[in-house]
């Protein structure tokens, strides 16, 4: 909760000079809130197997319940933090409109994406404990690779396509559409998000299913 607020302050102080868009505050805030949600809940799903090692070893629960409970907890947490953020967004000039309804399916798609990525990395993390460290090191790099502190048109035309190689780009841009541009998310972006979510969930679940028999002996 405080983390994105402080970050917002930094972004406003540092980046508002180079971003010449209208209402940079709202742009940065809407990106930050959901970036924080995505990056922190992937980490929670990722560590859910390791964190619950003792339960995994002595209570007969399906191991899938751990990542699932991590993502549900993260969603509840997000719902609670959204209340103060909405108030702040109104101060920054957000106006309520119907495109807000699109946030529900978008969150669902995002949650599936998070679950997939988190489970894939989390399964590997049972066997290679440095995955977790690698992830926490890489994620700040992704933050600057995703247009949150800046707008895509700040980059020269020739390099702008690089941003589209980043899966997080499509999610954050969709949230920007809803909260900053007050429009229903771009359908192409939304489609890419859905495909990414399905692909990552399939990958995560397949890895999890294949290697879960090794959990007990390696956790």
């Amino acid at each position, binding site marked *: 909760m405080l983390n994105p607020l402080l970050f917002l302050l930094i972004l406003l102080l540092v980046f508002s000079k180079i971003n010449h868009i209208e209402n940079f505050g709202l742009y940065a805030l809407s990106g930050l809130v959901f970036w924080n949600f995505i990056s922190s809940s992937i980490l929670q799903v990722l560590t859910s197997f390791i964190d619950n090692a*003792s*339960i995994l070893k*002595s*209570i*007969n629960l399906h191991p899938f319940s751990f990542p699932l409970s991590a993502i549900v907890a993260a969603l509840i947490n997000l719902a609670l933090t959204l209340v103060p953020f909405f108030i702040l967004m109104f101060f920054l000039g957000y106006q309520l409109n119907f495109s807000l309804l699109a946030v529900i399916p978008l969150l669902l798609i995002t949650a599936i994406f998070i679950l997939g990525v988190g489970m894939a990395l989390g399964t590997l993390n049972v066997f*290679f404990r440095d995955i977790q460290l690698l992830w926490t090191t890489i994620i700040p790099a992704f933050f600057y690779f995703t247009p949150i502190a800046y707008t895509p048109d700040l980059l020269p035309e020739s390099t702008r396509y690089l941003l589209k190689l980043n899966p997080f780009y499509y999610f954050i841009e969709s949230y920007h559409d809803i909260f900053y541009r007050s429009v229903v998310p771009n359908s192409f972006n939304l489609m890419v998000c859905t495909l990414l979510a399905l692909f990552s969930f399939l990958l995560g679940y397949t890895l999890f299913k294949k*290697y879960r028999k*090794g959990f*007990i*002996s390696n956790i």
Partner: protein
Amino acid sequence: MTQSESIIQLKGVDICFYVQENGFISLKDFVLNIGKYSFLKKQFVLQNINLDIKKGESIALLGKNGSGKSTLLRTLSGIIEPEKGQINIHGKVAPLLGLGVGLEHELSGIENIKLSCALMGMTQYETKQLMPEIIEFSELGDAIHWQVKRYSTGMMSRLSFSIAIMKQPEILLIDEVLSVGDIGFQHKCLKKVSDIKEAGATIIFVSHNFAEAQNMCSKAALVNNGTITHYGDINEIGPIYHQLFEN
């Protein structure tokens, strides 16, 4: 149901561990050694386990440390899937495999009772009904409202044992968790387990305290070298068990 009906049947069960052959714990090691070794290696822990336990029997599992007793209990409780063989269990299993599992240290005793009951698959209604009994059995008094992080080890064991034991199970698996608390509580626990037994439950009991096992169980299974070498009356298995440690 007749008294001689089988409640647990294991036929030719093999149980494996999947271990990383060279103990890679970091991705770096794995990448540097890629192709040299396979990722996960099968390691047999228990092989060709055959057991036929009748309803209402109580069995002691005896064996050295690391012989696979706990792994066998985990398999019976469904936490580990067997590699091969057939397991038939007719009844609800209550595993008591570790105390203090699932206790959340920031929450109070009461809240932890609710949490643990939920983890064991009880409904809110059941939990509410069992709550006074659990609190009374644990003898924690006012401490039940404290955060669990302020508990001593003994108090924590009292709490989690009380939670685990309260619901009358059909099959109770106990893994060396009875030697907790002070003597008074130990006796109380043993008495409770006997009561559960009297009520018709089947008990599988792992202990290194042979006298205790003898007290509790009529039969014993000796686990050695990755399989059950002897199975029968506990008084016959006793000398064989003690012989293991003579060399």
